[in-house]
């Protein structure tokens, strides 16, 4: 499988290893966290903004809840929502971009002008607008963030598709009278794996930042629930008494985005062209094999 090979090659680069390591660390923390937290994240166990102690390793928050427990509990919802929003954005944007480029004409015009309109709004403002009209529902935030990504994804995949749909192997299949939907699915899509992977990684990074931002502004899970974005917001007044309550969730969000971004960068670097000339391919394969050994 092409995408698996690309992933493996990306992991083998130093850049990819660091990126995957960072991402893996934060994801692991968010997934295992809820099962190992010392206290309930919503119980008042200490004095508000108390400094770290043996009982509360990261001290207390604005209401005297255990910061460590809240950190361990506050990541997984954010992660799931970011992944869901990314998937939604890439699928919708990808489908729009590929069809616009391949079908051309009126459809291209309609899709791309819609994309232009959506792109005119900053994505956070766009998400905020939807959320303030309909209300802070989690599914709506996912859709809003995903939808905010779709135009950029559509742009990138449209230009990639424009190039591929002029290739002779696409013409060869068109000459048989194969239906456009099938041409896009079986001839064009497999050749878009590299840009798709890069775009997915990039959008995931943005999704995390957007989600955390929306949470920070209070559009997210309702208050007693722990959430990294909202923790920064609720604890920032006590920054001088117990900085850990702000620094740790902020650092985790930063690490996660740096990790996904670095890994995406590694993928982008690995995913160089597939249609290499044989002698060149032989040379590069030889070099890669030797570097690996």
């Amino acid at each position, binding site marked *: 499988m092409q995408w698996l090979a690309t992933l493996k090659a990306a992991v083998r680069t130093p850049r990819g290893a660091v990126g995957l390591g960072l991402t893996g660390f934060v994801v692991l923390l968010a997934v295992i966290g809820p099962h190992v937290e010392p206290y309930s994240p919503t119980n008042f166990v200490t004095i508000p903004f108390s400094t770290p102690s043996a009982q509360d390793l990261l001290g207390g928050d604005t209401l005297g809840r255990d910061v460590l427990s809240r950190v361990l509990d506050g990541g997984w919802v954010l992660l799931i929502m970011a992944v869901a929003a990314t998937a939604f954005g890439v699928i919708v944007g990808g489908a729009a971009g590929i069809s616009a480029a391949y079908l051309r004409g009126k459809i291209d015009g309609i899709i791309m002008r819609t994309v232009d309109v959506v792109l005119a709004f900053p994505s956070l403002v766009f998400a905020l607008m939807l959320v303030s009209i309909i209300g802070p529902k989690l599914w709506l935030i996912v859709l809003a963030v995903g939808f905010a990504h779709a135009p950029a994804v559509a742009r990138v995949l449209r230009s990639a598709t424009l190039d591929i749909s002029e290739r002779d192997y696409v013409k*060869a299949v*068109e000459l048989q009278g*194969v239906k456009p939907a099938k041409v896009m699915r079986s001839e064009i899509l*497999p050749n878009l794996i590299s840009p798709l992977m890069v775009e997915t990684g990039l959008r995931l990074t943005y999704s995390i930042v957007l989600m955390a931002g929306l949470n920070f502004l209070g559009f997210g899970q309702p208050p007693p629930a722990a959430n990294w974005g909202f923790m920064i917001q609720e604890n920032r007044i006590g920054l001088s008494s117990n900085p850990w309550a702000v620094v740790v969730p902020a650092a985790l969000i930063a690490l996660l985005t740096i990790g996904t971004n670095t890994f995406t960068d590694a993928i982008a670097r690995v995913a160089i062209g597939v249609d290499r000339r*044989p002698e060149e391919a032989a040379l*590069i394969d030889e*070099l890669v094999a030797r570097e690996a050994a």
Partner: protein
Amino acid sequence: MSTTAPAASETGLTTAPVRLEIQNLRIELASSGEDVVDEVSFTVRAGELLGLVGESGSGKTTVALALLGHARRGLAIAGGRINLDGEDLLSLRPAQLRAVRGAKVAYVPQDPSAALNPTLRIGLQLREALNCHPGAVEDVEARTVEVLQDARLDVNSGILKRYPHQLSGGQQQRVALAMAFACRPSLIVLDEPTTGLDVSTQRHVLETVRALCRSYGVAAVYVSHDLAVVGGLVSDVAVMYAGRIIELGSTQQVFNFPIHPYTRGLLEAVPSPDRSEVLTGMKGQPPRPGRRPKGCSFAPRCSYAVERCSIESPAPLHATGRLVRCLRASELGAGALAARGTPVPVSLTVSEPILQLNELSASYGRHAVLHDVNLQVAPESCTAIVGESGSGKTTLARCIVGLHANWRGQMSFEASPLARGMRGRQIELLKRIQYIFQNPYTSLNPRKTVSQIISQPLEHFERQLTTREREVRIARVLADVSLGSAFLHRFPDQLSGGERQRVAIARALVVEPDLLVCDEVTSALDVSVQAVIVELLRRLQHEHRLAMIFITHNLALVRSIAQTAVVLCEGRVVEAGPVEEILEHPSDEYTIRLIKDVPKLTPGAKEP
């Protein structure tokens, strides 16, 4: 070992000083130290041209770049000397090397349209080339005009103010030549500079190169896979195979009396417009660096190979006025190239045409490309469409298969009219007319295996087939194009150019069409591979009783494959009829010029 090209002593006339001397050049894969090029030695005298020929992957471009002190990424120049006017280029520091490049060694790239900066005017680019070597030229303006005249470009036509895209391909290549000769270098390296040009333009550019080298005493190394081009141009030729020079001598000697079996194979693969014969190509492909067999690298493909060849590595021998690297050189001797080949059986059957075009005119937007083209293709015969680039031959093919719908006139297939675009055609019709694309590097989906690529049209056109029946059909068609079942699960980037084109042919043939349209199917391939593919098509056309349209710019190929031909010039048919008649008694001026300009394997044929 001796490094002097024997040609010089042989004629006894050349006393020009040696400009370039290469000794035991070795280039390795930087990571593993395996040799890509090894034991390469030759000399070039002032005013002489040396041809460096071989198939792709033979290492000829690697050697050419080394002459500029450059190695591609992943490669390293590991040993040897490159003496230019007595100075070893390989011992220079990077800054010194930069000063030498452009001033003393110049490079003419393959594709001038990619090498010239599209945003700069020609005059500025030429001045730039001169100005980066301060002191090399006193009067930059005067020199600019001078080199353009040298390259036979009209300075008064305002060419200095033009941008590259406003020039034709031939003019662009002349500008690249002018830039290379601007600083009056000692050595010029030409990397297949005429590949993208028409035969006529090509001939003119080659004449310019030869004249410039003569008059300025420049040594030139000309890299090419096209032996016919090299034959008429260079004084000495070095044939490369698997990173070594396997035959080196005067062009006259080497091309007329080749010794090394590889040289013989290459020469036999070159089509000629004078004879119609079965082309013999070479099976297999050159071994990759690090995968070279023990003994002689060519042994696995060599029909003269004996047991000794796969054990002993041949050392270069002096034999009849040349160096040759073959264990059996003395036995094989310098046989004149046998009055070659089996003539192609010609059979002209007069019957109802399978495809008929009447007064077909086509255009892109408002720009008319074809004017009133008439064409008939008889069943079970091959019609060649010949023309230079821009003559409209590819547009004609695209109209026939339905890729281009903007045409007027009549086109009928088995006496029933054909719809303009493929969307208007019956599925049965789409199946019966198959098209093979020019470039096998872009016509196969890089994400699909050979088996998926060939079974795709079957799944579409013949849905009634079971998986088992499909497999049988695929196996049969793969055998037809001489590919084994080992290829089934390979991806296109694991195949060579020739193998890719076979897969493309198999994809077209698997649905058992009646008309096959081949659009320049060999232009992206080596000469040796071209011969194999043309032979394959000829055999398949006969066996499958196909009608075929063979589009080419290479008149020499036409004779080997087609029975009738149509010559296109600027979208009009200027001549049509049986191939023999057109090639032997051309009536149209354009055809006459086209035939005259075809590069022929006539070494030493030089004009004063």
